[in-house]
């Protein structure tokens, strides 16, 4: 058969020389290689004490932001859920009642807002879709391993940014 390219090499099976058959020189060579690795710098990152440096554009766990007065920015428009390629985001919308102006910025707000971290691919499209600058992917947190599937569904309790206590002083 005609070869497709002329890159193939013809394999030659030759007799091994005496030094090769003696086996000991090859062992010495191998021991030299392992000894070199013995003194090499180790690749291990001592995880809980050290963490690997992350990129500036690294996308981690979601956060639902508050505005400068501490009211939630999200208006439950659903654009993030539409943009999500993994269909990880679900929400139900509700109407703001009188006296809740300090809690929610606009008349409509998200009663529930859930992100399934097992579905999420951390692509960041929700962040791009949000017209209210409400959802962001943090660059310093990640979704830790858990024992139950239910625990991966993050509700508002774990997503909404905590209130800044320094402002109340």
């Amino acid at each position, binding site marked *: 058969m005609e070869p497709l390219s002329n890159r193939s090499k013809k394999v030659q099976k030759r007799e091994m020389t005496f030094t090769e058959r003696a086996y*000991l020189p090859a*062992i010495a060579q191998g*021991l030299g*290689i*392992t000894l070199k690795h*013995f003194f090499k710098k*180790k690749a*291990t990152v*001592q995880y809980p004490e050290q963490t690997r440096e992350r990129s500036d554009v690294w996308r981690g766990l979601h956060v639902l932001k508050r505005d400068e007065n501490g009211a939630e920015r999200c208006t439950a428009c659903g654009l993030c859920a539409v943009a999500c390629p993994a269909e990880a985001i679900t929400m139900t919308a509700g109407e703001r009642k009188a006296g809740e102006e300090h809690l929610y910025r606009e008349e409509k707000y998200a009663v529930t807002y859930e992100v399934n971290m097992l579905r999420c691919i951390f692509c960041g499209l929700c962040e791009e879709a949000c017209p209210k600058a409400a959802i962001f992917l943090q660059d310093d947190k990640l979704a830790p391993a858990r024992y139950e599937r239910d625990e991966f569904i993050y509700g508002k309790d774990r997503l909404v940014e905590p209130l800044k206590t320094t402002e109340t002083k």
Partner: protein
Amino acid sequence: MESVDLLYKAIYILAIFGITLLIATYSTYFERKIAAFIQDRVGPNRAGPAGLLQPLADAGKLFFKEDFIPNKASKALFILGPGIAMLVATMSSAVVPFGDKLIIGGHEINLIAIDVNIGVLYVFGVVSLGVYGLMVGGWASNNKFSLLGAIRAASQNISYELAMGLSLIAVLMLSGTLSLREIAEQQSGFNWNIWYQPLGFIIFLVCAFAECNRTPFDLPESEAELIGGYHTEYGSMKLGMYLFAEYINIFVASAVMATLYFGAYNFPFMEDLRAAISDPVLANNVVTIVGLVAMFTKIFLFIFFFMWVRWTLPRFRYDQLMKLGWQILIPLAILNIMLTGGGILLKEYLF
């Protein structure tokens, strides 16, 4: 023998027994550390400073695991197997001279547990008994993999003991004695046997690897093909005993190699050191203690070599193992005997 001498001897035997166990315990730690370093990792470092308590944690884990005996196993032999392995392993360090004699209060204490005139034969006899531990355990498990592992162990040990014994004969021809103590004494200073017996040493080394069931000769316990070989059915501390016995065997093999070929407790310029100190008793004790340190340094280097080889070489195929043992090492050992004999005759003829 006076009662004081008996007391000293008892203390010495206890110390050697303790040191043997301690070294075997920490061999597991160093094995893991060395493996990790060779593979560019750092190894155990969580239990205690630098992971030094790791062997205790491992032993604790093994002790608290369920002590399981298979239903179809022969119970008595199943328990006896690791016992034999452990007993035999700890027995053989009795005749190894770890140092020369100390003089305390006019009493001479030889740093050797039992000074028998057939030390070499004793070591060989005891070490070859070690295979019974494997054999009994493997057979009693009533499991095909265990039995195969045990049979492999038996045939491998028998094959390599032959070459080992033959390579040793050349050393015995040179020294003219079977006592390990006298062999050690003859290599005073830097006059070590390795300079006269390089080929014999290489054969002995290869056979020692095979006798200890270490890589590249760890076929009896090859986990890839035999699921662990003779200790497939073992768990808990009975498994621990087998593994422990293996490390003790490495220690003993290192000690024997250091004694036979690397001058035991002798170190270069030891006579200069002895002459430099005016008080003869003090001079003797200083030289003995430095010699003790030298002996253990040699042993540790050998243990390191055992581990270094383990993390470098892959395992032999079984037919390669047999071919190496019977067709290469034994003829080489016989050639070595003839060369040594010729050398001795030549020396007598010339001088």
